[in-house]
C-alpha cells in the first residue's frame, strides 16, 4: 500500500479512491446544476443534431424539460416531456451512481451490471421507436 503522501501516477490515496475522478464528477455535477438554473431562468437548452437531421425524437428527448419540471415540482409536465425516463428514474440513478462509484475507485463493473445496463439500453431503444410511432 502506498503511503498517504505518495499520490502515485493515478492520484490515488490509500483508501483506493481517485481524487482526480472525484473532482471531475464534482465539476460535472456543478455544471449540471448551473445548466438547470440557466434553463429555469429561461435560457435555451442544448440543440440536438439527431432531431435536426431526422426530425425524430430520440429516447432522451425532453430530458432537460423533464428535469426542469421536476425541480419545479410539476410531475405532469415532467411526464409529458419524457415518460420513460421519469418512470425509470430510480433505476437510471442507480445505474449512473453505481457506475460512478466504481469509476471513482478505479474498478471495473462486472457482467451483472453490464447486463442491467444493456437491459436499460434496450428499453431506451424500444421507447425511442414507440414514441415516434404513436
Amino acid at each position, binding site marked *: 500500500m502506498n503511503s498517504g503522501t505518495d499520490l502515485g501516477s493515478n492520484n490515488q490515496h490509500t483508501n483506493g479512491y481517485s481524487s482526480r475522478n472525484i473532482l471531475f464528477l464534482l465539476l460535472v455535477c456543478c455544471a449540471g446544476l448551473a445548466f438547470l438554473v440557466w434553463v429555469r431562468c429561461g435560457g435555451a437548452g442544448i440543440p440536438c*443534431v439527431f432531431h435536426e437531421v*431526422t426530425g425524430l425524437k430520440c429516447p432522451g428527448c425532453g430530458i432537460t424539460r423533464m428535469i426542469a419540471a421536476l425541480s419545479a415540482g410539476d410531475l405532469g409536465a415532467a411526464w409529458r416531456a419524457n415518460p420513460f425516463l421519469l418512470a425509470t428514474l430510480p433505476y437510471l440513478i442507480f445505474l449512473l451512481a453505481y457506475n460512478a462509484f466504481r469509476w471513482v475507485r478505479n474498478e471495473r*463493473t462486472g457482467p451483472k451490471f453490464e447486463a442491467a445496463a444493456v437491459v436499460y439500453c434496450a428499453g*431506451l431503444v424500444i421507447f425511442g421507436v414507440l414514441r415516434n410511432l404513436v
Partner: protein
Amino acid sequence: MKMCKRCGAANGDSGKFCVECGAPLESRSNRNGGAQGQSRGNMYGGAQGQSRGNMYGGAQGEDFYGGYSDRGPDRSANAQEEIIYTDVAPRSIAVSVILTIVTCGIYFFYWMYHLNNEINEMAQEPMATGGGTVVVLSLVTCGIYTLYWYYKMGERCDYIAQTHTSNNVLYLILGIFGLGIVSVALMQDTVNRALS
C-alpha cells in the same frame, strides 16, 4: 523492487503482476518509433490524459504485420512480443450510450475524444489528429468533419480488427443518417474486442 503503476504497492523484482491489485507490472507502449510516454498527454499535443487504473488487456501475440506492409514501423521482429496498451481500457458500451442520451450528447464528445486517441494508438498512428482537435472541428463544422472522422476511424478499426470488412463505409453511412452513436458504439466494440 518494482512499484505498481496503478496502486503504488511495492512488488518484488521478479513479479509480473502486482500482488495488491493485479495490474501488470511491465508496461510497454506499442511500437511507435520509440515513444516512451504512458500518458496520452505526451502524444497528443499536451491534452490531459485520463488515468485509467482499471484492467489492462492486451492483444496476445497478434501480428499486425500481415497484409498491411505499408503501415508504421517494421514489426516483424516484434511478432512474438505481447502488446500491452497501458492507457487503453475497455469501456462499457451500454453505459456510454445511456450517458450520451442522458447528457443530450455532451458525453458523446468525451467518448469521441478518448476513442479517437485510443484507436489512433492501437492502429499505430500516433501522429494522427488528436482528440481535442477532432472535437473542436466537429463542433465548428456542425458535424461535417465528424462524417470524415467516422470514415477514418472505420479504416483504423478495420486495421485493428484485422478484418476485410468496410467499417469505414458503414460508419460514414450511419453518420449521414444521424446514427453516429451507433458508429461510435461499433468503434468501441472493436477496441473492447482487441483488448480482450
